[in-house]
């Protein structure tokens, strides 16, 4: 990490009075960690990958490189969190997601800077952060409404009371799109957790740092630990293990390489996983009408039909 972050040669770039003060103060570097079970962790493997500190910068930052064991640990955390999260009322889940929007809004500058360091121009980054916060608000409103849209009272031809309503599936493994790194990440997590599922997410390989900043907002939003678990590292290394994992109910794969995705679908068949494979372009992620459609929630719920006789 070089000069401009306040290394030993920082005085060379000091141009203002403030900078003079900074020039003598060593900056604090951040250790980026994955978010699993409500805790920030390194990979159990001890491995990291490196990303550029900023576009064109020679400095590197270390990002955890998730292992198979990290994936399995994340599934355990997600499964443990599912009982409680799915049992909460839609109203309560909605308030927690709204709280997430508040936490993200407070971190808007940090998220914008992170996206810029990940390669976006500042204006683009600000637009993406705003769209992300709005998407969280939209889904916080869905948590107690999609049920009314998907449910039905079925007019069976007999003396029975018969109705169908949605329930969560369980643990869903998600591969977030490479870009947009923040909006895509939030956009695929939200519809899945809105209905009570919990997720294990493999974050964008193109900009993993932003996913870590996002998880810091999750951690302060009253979202119970384990509802969202975010892993960083090469998708191709961890996804096959998640696709084979018997505790995972569904896979939601965004922009995954065709061969890896096909293999994951094949592996998922071992426990009849529900699989969605999509590749939206960046503009499509910004299309609120399409990405906030109840179809996104409907894809990851189970419909339960209950019969009861009506008689004396």
């Amino acid at each position: 990490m070089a000069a401009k972050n306040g290394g030993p040669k920082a005085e060379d770039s000091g141009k203002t009075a403030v900078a003079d003060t900074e020039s003598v103060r060593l900056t604090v570097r951040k250790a980026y960690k994955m978010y699993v079970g409500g805790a920030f962790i390194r990979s159990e493997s001890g491995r990291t990958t490196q990303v550029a500190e900023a576009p064109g910068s020679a400095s590197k930052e270390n990002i955890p490189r998730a292992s198979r064991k990290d994936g399995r640990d994340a599934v355990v955390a997600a499964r443990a969190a599912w009982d409680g999260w799915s049992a909460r009322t839609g109203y309560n889940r909605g308030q927690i997601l709204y709280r997430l929007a508040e936490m993200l809004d407070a971190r808007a500058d940090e998220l914008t800077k992170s996206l810029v360091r990940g390669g976006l121009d500042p204006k683009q980054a600000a637009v993406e952060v705003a769209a992300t916060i709005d998407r969280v608000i939209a889904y916080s409103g869905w948590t107690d409404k999609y049920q009314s849209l998907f449910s039905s009272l079925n007019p069976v031809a007999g003396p029975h009371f018969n109705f169908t309503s949605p329930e969560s599936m369980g643990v869903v493994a998600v591969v977030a799109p490479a870009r947009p790194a923040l909006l895509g990440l939030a956009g695929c997590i939200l519809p899945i957790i809105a209905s009570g599922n919990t997720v294990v997410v493999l974050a964008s390989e193109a900009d993993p740092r932003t996913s870590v900043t996002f998880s810091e907002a999750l951690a302060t939003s009253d979202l119970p630990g384990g509802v969202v678990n975010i892993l960083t590292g090469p998708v191709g290394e961890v996804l096959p293990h998640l696709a084979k994992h018997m505790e995972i109910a569904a896979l939601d794969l965004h922009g995954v390489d065709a061969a890896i995705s096909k293999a994951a679908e094949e592996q998922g068949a071992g426990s009849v996983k529900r699989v969605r494979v999509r590749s939206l372009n960046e503009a499509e992620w910004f299309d609120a009408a399409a990405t906030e459609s109840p179809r996104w929630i409907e894809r990851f719920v189970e419909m339960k039909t209950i019969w009861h006789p009506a008689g004396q």
Partner: protein
Amino acid sequence: MSTKEAASTAPATTAAAKPDAKRPESKAIGMAFGDVWTYAPAPEARDHIKLQAKYDLFIGGKWKAPESKKYFDTISPSTEEKLAEIADASAKDVDLAVQAARTGYEKYWSKLRPLDRGKYLFRIARALQEKARELAIVETMDGGKPIKESRDVDVPLAAAHFFYYAGWADKLEHAFPGRNARALGVAGQVIPWNFPLLMAAWKLAPALAAGNTCVLKPAETTPLTALMLAQIIEEADLPPGVVNIVTGAGATGAALVGHPGVDKVAFTGSTDVGKKIQRALAGTQKKLTLELGGKAANIVFADAALDQAVEGIIGGIFFNQGHVCCAGSRLLVEEGIHEVLIRKLKDRMATIRLGDPLDKNTDIGAINSRMQLDKIRGLVAAGEAEGATRFSAPCVIPDRGYWFAPTLFTGVSQSHRIAREEIFGPVLSVLTFRTPEEAVEKANNTMYGLSAGIWTEKGAKSFWVAQRLRAGVIWANTFNKFDPSSPFGGYKESGFGREGGRQGLLAYLEVD
């Protein structure tokens, strides 16, 4: 069956009764209704049924000999008599059928006024009602199920399914408001042998209403009613290629689901085959829905109306010889009522009449095939070998055909194969529990999640349990009820997608 049963009547009212060689456990039975009253034979007449000697494939609105030039026999499992020869469709035949379906879609079905699409389906529903008697008899001859079931359940429900979905054809925009519902194209559909005509209706009706065209493959042991349905479709003047029926075994099904011209695959059958299909479709972007196996828990609480529960349990496992994916094959009984419930079940089982499926008094017909009978025997042997206690109802097994006496196992533990694997036969495994939490835990301890039953007179408890059961269909104080307006389908390894109701349309539509 009655005369044979009467001949073997044994007094079974006291524990001191002499053991009968054919009824080894009859002393456990406290009552003997089945022996007290005999029934005169009441066979449904079949003399007006005219089966063809040979059935070809129904492709592009025409009957066509298979390119394979091969035919196989379909037999009656209750008599082992040959009923007809059935065309064995090869990959080439399947290809022709898919092409015909594509043409039917592009040229006719997608251009038709939606209301007229519906009117064709209404025609089919009406014709099914008009030919109900013939269809019921053939269904029973070909599949072995009791005539009272094919007459009162299979055929009326098949007609109801077409009638129900006919009405959706012109209302899709209201089914999913603002979401631009559109047809998928050509659907490839593979159905099982347990409800041959009904499953054909479950597949074809929603697919056609949603605007798709179909290639349907019935099961190789029960193709006749699907072919009669093809005749009805022909008589209803559906445009050529809208429905195509290709008969054959597994290879024909594999050719159909693997055909690149198919946009949507719908399969009902075993979980093993379902997984193979899902694997085969990986990376193809084809839409898939699966309705697979089950191992349903039927939970009886001590506060249940016990006599009603007994009827529900008996119907839950012995309906259609237990060849039902949603059969209540794991009975979970609250410990305190175990003894009395088992006694009542054994009493009730003693009254079940097994025999000629065409007899209107028959409760249990023939096992569908030799292969299935072998599978049931294998799993029952495993149950005995693993230490569970077997009780089989005292009944006389006919000399010809495939049969299995209604059976229950007590002392079953969760690790036994008969508690984990789908038997798909008239075999009930009984386990016990002490608390509602334990009942839920045991009920959910399975890879399947198709259906479940709850018996309690406490409303709050039944909903508490229903919310926690991981199954797609829950019957509370009832079992094995079906209706075209009611979505049916599984959680977990029982498959995905729903059939029936508005939700059933989603399997055949693209929506935003």
